[in-house]
């Protein structure tokens, strides 16, 4: 398999996952914000912060209101992580790698991109948003289902999985960070207990609510949620699970070249015991995890995407 094609497939998987996650995030926020007391200062803008988009957002918009945030996250073509940008990048990557993918994959991706582009206004208006976002999420899952059901478990598949799992792990650390940041920014003297609401929402954003309830079997609490999302061995979006899957996918790929470096990283340790463990130190830990994920990406790129050997 060509290195260039491997790279495009890896990125296609990342963008597919990113598009779905973005749609999911906006959908969950839609629900959450109805439940929060007015005194609480968690707004739509939090979503921009999670996605490291603060600077870019301020270049484009003045007001941090719902409409602008949703527009920025779903439709903005100057935001490289917006849902539409992700779908466009997905389409371009699949288009230039479709010779190794099932031909229906290209058709589905193309359809999804057209659907998103033609109906994007529905995502911005609140009344149709739910249906629209569901359409996007179902579209992404349909593509994932098609690929899972039809792709040979060859290197192309391994690169898909690598991209998908790395993007997921990244998103999970961002969701946790959003939760921690939200609670740090509230007034400690505020009598309303927001913990349950915020951590419950973090779980829902990661489609983790039901799996958490079944696995942990206690009420939603910050430390339990953090441990579940970071370290659960069965939940497909926990950081640990994603990294183990990545290592597994990598082990199926050829270890050519002298510069081959193992994909499984050494994770920084951080003990989470009670609510006091979820302060600024926790946020620093999450930041360290994101650096590790970036390092994993660099290793993948170094192992298989770059190739400067000269033939003998």
């Amino acid at each position, binding site marked *: 398999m*060509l290195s*260039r094609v491997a790279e495009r497939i890896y990125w296609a998987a990342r963008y597919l996952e990113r598009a779905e996650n973005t749609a999911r995030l906006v959908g969950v926020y839609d629900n959450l914000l109805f439940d929060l007391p007015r005194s609480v200062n968690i707004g739509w803008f939090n979503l921009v912060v999670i996605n490291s988009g603060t600077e870019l957002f301020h270049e484009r918009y003045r007001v941090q209101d719902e409409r602008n945030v949703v527009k920025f996250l779903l439709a903005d073509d100057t935001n490289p992580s917006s849902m539409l940008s992700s779908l466009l990048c997905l389409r371009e990557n699949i288009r230039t790698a479709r*010779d190794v993918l099932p031909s229906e994959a290209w058709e589905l991706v193309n359809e999804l991109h*057209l659907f998103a582009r033609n109906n994007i206004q529905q995502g911005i208006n609140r009344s149709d948003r739910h249906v629209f976002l569901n359409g996007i999420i179902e579209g992404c899952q349909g593509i994932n289902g098609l690929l899972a059901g039809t792709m040979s478990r060859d290197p192309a598949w391994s690169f898909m999985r690598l991209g998908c799992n790395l993007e997921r792990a990244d998103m999970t650390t961002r969701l946790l960070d959003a939760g921690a940041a939200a609670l740090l920014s509230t007034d400690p003297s505020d009598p309303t207990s927001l913990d349950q609401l915020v951590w419950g929402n973090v779980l829902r954003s990661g489609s983790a609510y039901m799996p958490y309830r079944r696995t942990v079997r206690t009420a939603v609490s910050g430390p339990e949620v953090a441990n579940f999302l970071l370290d659960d061995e069965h939940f497909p979006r926990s950081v640990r699970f994603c990294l183990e899957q990545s290592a597994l996918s990598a082990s199926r790929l050829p270890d050519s070249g002298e510069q081959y470096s193992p994909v499984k990283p050494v994770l920084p340790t951080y003990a989470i015991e009670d609510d006091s463990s979820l302060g600024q130190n926790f946020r620093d830990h999450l930041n360290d995890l994101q650096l590790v994920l970036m390092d994993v990406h660099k290793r993948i790129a170094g192992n298989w995407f770059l*190739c400067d*050997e000269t033939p003998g």
Partner: protein
Amino acid sequence: MYIDWKQYDPGHFFDELIGADGSPRDPASKLTHYLTDLNTEELEKRRKMAEATIQEMGVSFTVYTEEGNIDRAWPFDIIPRTISRQQWDKTAAGLKQRLRALNLFIDDLYHEQRILKDKVVPRYLIENSTNFRPECIGVSPPHGVWAHICGTDLVRDGDGEFYVLEDNLRVPSGVSYMLENRSITKRVLPELFENDNILPIDDYPARLFDTLASLSPRQVKQPEIVVLTPGIFNSAYFEHAFLAQQMGAELVEGSDLVVGDDDMVYMRTIDGLTRVDVIYRRIDDLFLDPEVFRKDSTLGVPGLMRAWKKGNVALANAPGAGVADDKVIYAYVPQIIKYYLDEEPLIRNVETFLCDDDKQRRYVLANLDKLVVKPANESGGYGMLVGPHSTQKEQARFAELIKANPRNYIAQPTLALSTAPTLVANNNLEPRHLDLRPFILQARDTYCTTGGLTRVAMTKGSLVVNSSQGGGSKDTWIVDTEVK
């Protein structure tokens, strides 16, 4: 409202579906009968279905404009064009004959040049040809074949006969659209495939694969075959990806390939460097290898010609094959067929005037308003003068061009290009002019597609069918009328 064939009038042109007496031709009878039963709403529904299918399948081509490159949906007319199997078999035999002769011709030009010594083709034509590559002299590609993939443009004149308009021996495109047109039609008019004897066309990718595999320098079970594309911005990128996928070959860009000190071609893969045996190249000769041709080419691979000359890699089509798709050489193809095969040409050429010949040039200059003037080495319908549709100013400009460089121009009478019913505004059927591009393969064996790509001039009265200039296309049905 239903289709009223009485309103359909192709005038004095030969119509592919409807005979001079207004009744359907044999191979079109089931089709026209079926269409007659569709009301306007149903026709509109099918047209929309085709449109949606094309969008979803992502069948597109790129148009270069001043505002940048636009990825356009493939323009498609849902009414197929029909040809009887009997007539097609004869035509296919003629096309194979033609390509065999052209390959003997090219091989001769790069070796002994017997045909020049025997003065059948004038030597200066070759020496002046922009597509003759001295770098290729003495090279002997497998099977003595240079043009492995050929797209020949056929037109039907008022007499109902097929004529060859031109041979495309460099990087002919369109075959993927031929295949996609059929998949679209199967979705849009499925009932007809049950009742009519329409011959299948989908073996092309397998035949192309076999053709390429038979060129492999290594006698291995699975030679490494790649399709070399200039990249996503090329107008035919869709086709490059399509063919690579259908053949299970790698789609590579120049930067994916590297030639080693051992003069072998390798591609950069996740396993490291892997040797390549056959390259189906879809980039022009001059961009193939910056060491030999254009130094500024970033599309090609440095050292590729070295590897090819040593026989370490096969290139299809071989560099230099374009010498035979010069429009001046075209005029000599009947003599070329006779010279090498000692056979009469099975398909005729369109009458052609060579501006290089004093007498013929005088005739051309005196009749610019009636003739079609073409440059010898352009494709895509660019740089042409269509006499009857031109202004005096344009004619004067072409007169100057011809006088300045007579070797570079030919002229042909304006053909009464055949027509076929085409769906136009308000779901009316009107005659539109069309041509046909079959694809012929040659390596160890020779093969011709069943039919080809039909291109339609969508504008009333227009003769320009090129998709880059607003042409559309139709599915082409070879119908076996003898099977009941």
